């Protein structure tokens, strides 16, 4: 499964678990308006670390925090090649 699809499926699963309603997943979706709260994002990062084997937040030195879902996916894609 691609990194993008992995992220999408994890987001959907976490939203279901936490019983939060999320907006349709697309690149220009602002994370702050996605419907996911900070706990959901914290879980997402932990689960992606288990699935993908890395945590780009821990390795990316000066990278800004992703703002949109597209940023978030690229952040992980770049992390894979870092």
């Amino acid at each position, binding site marked *: 499964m691609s990194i993008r699809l992995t992220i999408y499926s994890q987001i959907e699963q976490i939203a279901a678990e936490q019983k939060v309603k999320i907006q349709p997943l697309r690149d220009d979706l602002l994370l702050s308006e996605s419907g996911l709260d900070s*706990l959901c994002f914290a879980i997402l990062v932990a*689960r992606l670390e288990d699935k993908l084997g890395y945590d780009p937040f821990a390795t990316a030195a000066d990278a800004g925090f992703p703002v949109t879902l597209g940023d978030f996916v690229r952040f992980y894609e770049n992390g894979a090649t870092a």
Partner: protein
Amino acid sequence: MAQQPEPQTLRQALASAAGAKRMLWGARGAVALADLAEGSAFRDGDVSGRSIVLATHAQLAAAQALVVLDGMAQRIIVCPPDLPFAHLAAIAAEAGADAIVTDRDETDFAGHDLPPRIACDLVPRSHEAAAPITTEWVLLTSGTTGVPKMVVHSLAALTGAIKPPQSGDAAPVWATFYDIRRYGGLQILLRALFGNRSMVLSDAGEPVADHLHRLASHGVTHISGTPSHWRRVLMSSECNVISPRYVRLSGEIADQTILDALKRQYPAAAVGHAYASTEAGVGFEVNDGLEGFPADILGETRDPSFKVVDDTLRIRSRRTASCYLGSPPQTLMDEDGFIDSGDVVAEREGRYYFVGRRGGIINVGGLKVHPEEVEQIINRHEAVKMSLVGARRNPITGAIVVADVVLHKPVEPGPDSDALKQDILTFCRAELPAHKVPAAVKFVAALEMTPAGKLVRQNG
């Protein structure tokens, strides 16, 4: 309240209650307690009035040395066997020790700045005891990092919770999964020595199945250990070779799951849990089969007395340690004589439940989580044998809860394993607020235990 009996020395207690066939069985040897009352395990060297570091390899040698040293030495510093030599040297220096009693080879001590050694071995020889003095007992805390603290006790405080044996009782045979050089294990040794009983000692390197067969062969009736020790027993295919009359838990939170599991496995046994620590001594025993303790033990007028301050249990009694040894001086108790246990409790309907250690809190985005409260929920899941909850660093919330889980029956990685993880998480979500539910569950074959028999936690 009944007066405490005058403190005796260990040797006097043994001599006055010398049953014909009382024994102390180690993993590789045994000694008759009647011989111990008369004999000395020391080959040479006078210990009278000295400050002695007791650093033996074998528990049996330690037990024999304790009987000789109590009443003769001015101070005994009781070292667990896994104490690193670097700490041993620091402890000996801090405690002003002038000799080390040991069964170890001389070469073990090469290169370490330590006091002179007095050899002790497993064969008691005759021994003339001088008039006894009051010996100070120093126990070490079981922290996982740094030099352990030295906690000063008297024999009277250490034995304050031990009731004299009832005549007519079938003489119990005690055993403990602890090492007798830690508070929980020492309590059981003292119970055996003061209570006209025999005892089977544990051995750190012994497989659980072998240990259980050894307990069975000596007809052990009373066994103590931490919940982690007991979970290891229940995970052994040999757990049915023993048939204890009394099962005792201490040292960690005894949750309802482990209490019920032990009652199922050993239906003839009374299952009780006790609250004790190296600093606070024996606090109370709970024998109603339920986790936690009834609120009516709180109150400041009894001995021991308990109160809850800032959700933390505090204890004052004649069984607590008297002070810490070493510099800089550390405070053990407050001005009213209460010791802060660091154990966080919560009250529900007239009963207090242990929630966790104050120092072990996980902070999830500013919300507090005690690992133990999450473990207690996970352990209730029917597929789960035991669990360890910890923190994982997280860029969003600072930390997040994760769990390592040991299953009753291992599951191969794949859809079944993923489904079971989801089921455990769903189970947690029904019982816990979202921030306390683990973000990730990992199935592991086993969980590591400290030498003191507790689950190894990230923050000790």
